[in-house]
């Protein structure tokens, strides 16, 4: 007498919908890539070749630059550790010195704030216009310098 197979150990019944989907999708040929793809990749590679080393990935930097970067980062870490090694007292003293240094600026600010309500409205409008113009000029200057120093390839 042939033993009956254990139903729990039988392979699962194949799903007809899954089998149909698999066969239908696998019968599709791969869509052709655009003809310009290889040209695009080569053009991008050529563009990247013209970039200065410091605008490329760190892995592409010259060995001396990578070494300098690691040394600078290490020095920064050591400096930070040394600064905070003395504990909170040294940090508090540093903050106190900073506060003392900024005290004249705070006084000046308070004086200006007290004087502003006394100024005529026309003066305030003129000052606001001058401030906005200066800000725009500064922004334009920064952008121009950035473009001059780091031209896009």
């Amino acid at each position, binding site marked *: 007498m042939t033993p009956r197979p254990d139903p729990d150990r039988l392979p699962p019944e194949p799903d007809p919908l899954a089998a149909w*989907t698999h066969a239908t999708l696998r*019968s599709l040929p791969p869509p052709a*890539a655009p003809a310009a793809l290889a040209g695009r990749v080569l053009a991008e590679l050529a563009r990247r070749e013209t970039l200065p080393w410091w605008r490329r990935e760190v892995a592409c930097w010259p060995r001396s630059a990578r070494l300098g970067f690691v040394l600078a980062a290490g020095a920064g870490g050591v400096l930070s550790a040394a600064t905070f090694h003395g504990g909170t007292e040294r940090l508090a003293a540093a903050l106190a010195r900073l506060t003392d240094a900024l005290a004249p600026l705070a006084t000046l600010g308070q004086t200006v704030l007290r004087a502003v309500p006394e100024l005529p409205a026309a003066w305030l409008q003129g000052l606001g216009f001058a401030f906005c113009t200066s800000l725009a000029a500064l922004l334009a200057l920064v952008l121009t310098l950035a473009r001059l120093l780091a031209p896009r390839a």
Partner: protein
Amino acid sequence: MNHNEPAAPPVPPVNAEEEFTAFMRAYQDTVFATAVRLTANRAQAEDIAQEVFLRAHARFAQLRASPTAGGWLKTVATNLALNHLSRYRRRWRFFSELRRADTGEGPGPEVEFAAPDEPRAPVEAAERRGQVERALAALPDHQRVPLVLFHFEDLPYEEIATRLGVSLAKVKTDLFRGRAALATALRGAGTVHDSFSP
């Protein structure tokens, strides 16, 4: 791993650029197909394929003679496409929880389909392939992506769940709904003929 794993570049190279160009020509359809099936967007797929080959160029010294270069390229293309989808389409998980009237829970729809290897005239076969491609691309991301990963990339359920950051049950549900939606769309397009009840 995949049925359309391409062979190594057949053209002997002359210089480095020509060698890399030949490498790209050999694999570009595979890489592009992976990306376009996952994203359902040709422009995004082209960007992804470009990024894949830029990364391949950075390690071309290892890839140029590697028999697994095709698999590496497909893996990178899959990862980039999934990253792209998760970055720009985070909402798809939310929308996937919404119950669609045409793909809701319960017994699957009455589906009729034809055997895929049924002999057909070339024009009819090309038209049918186009209908399947369009129906696949029209599926929502949460159904199309598991379908592509399972049926084209041969990933098991568990890996699909891990890659997509969803539960195994959700992967199985989305796969079932995606297959049913695909069959329904093709039945609507007249591509499915034979009676079938899942």
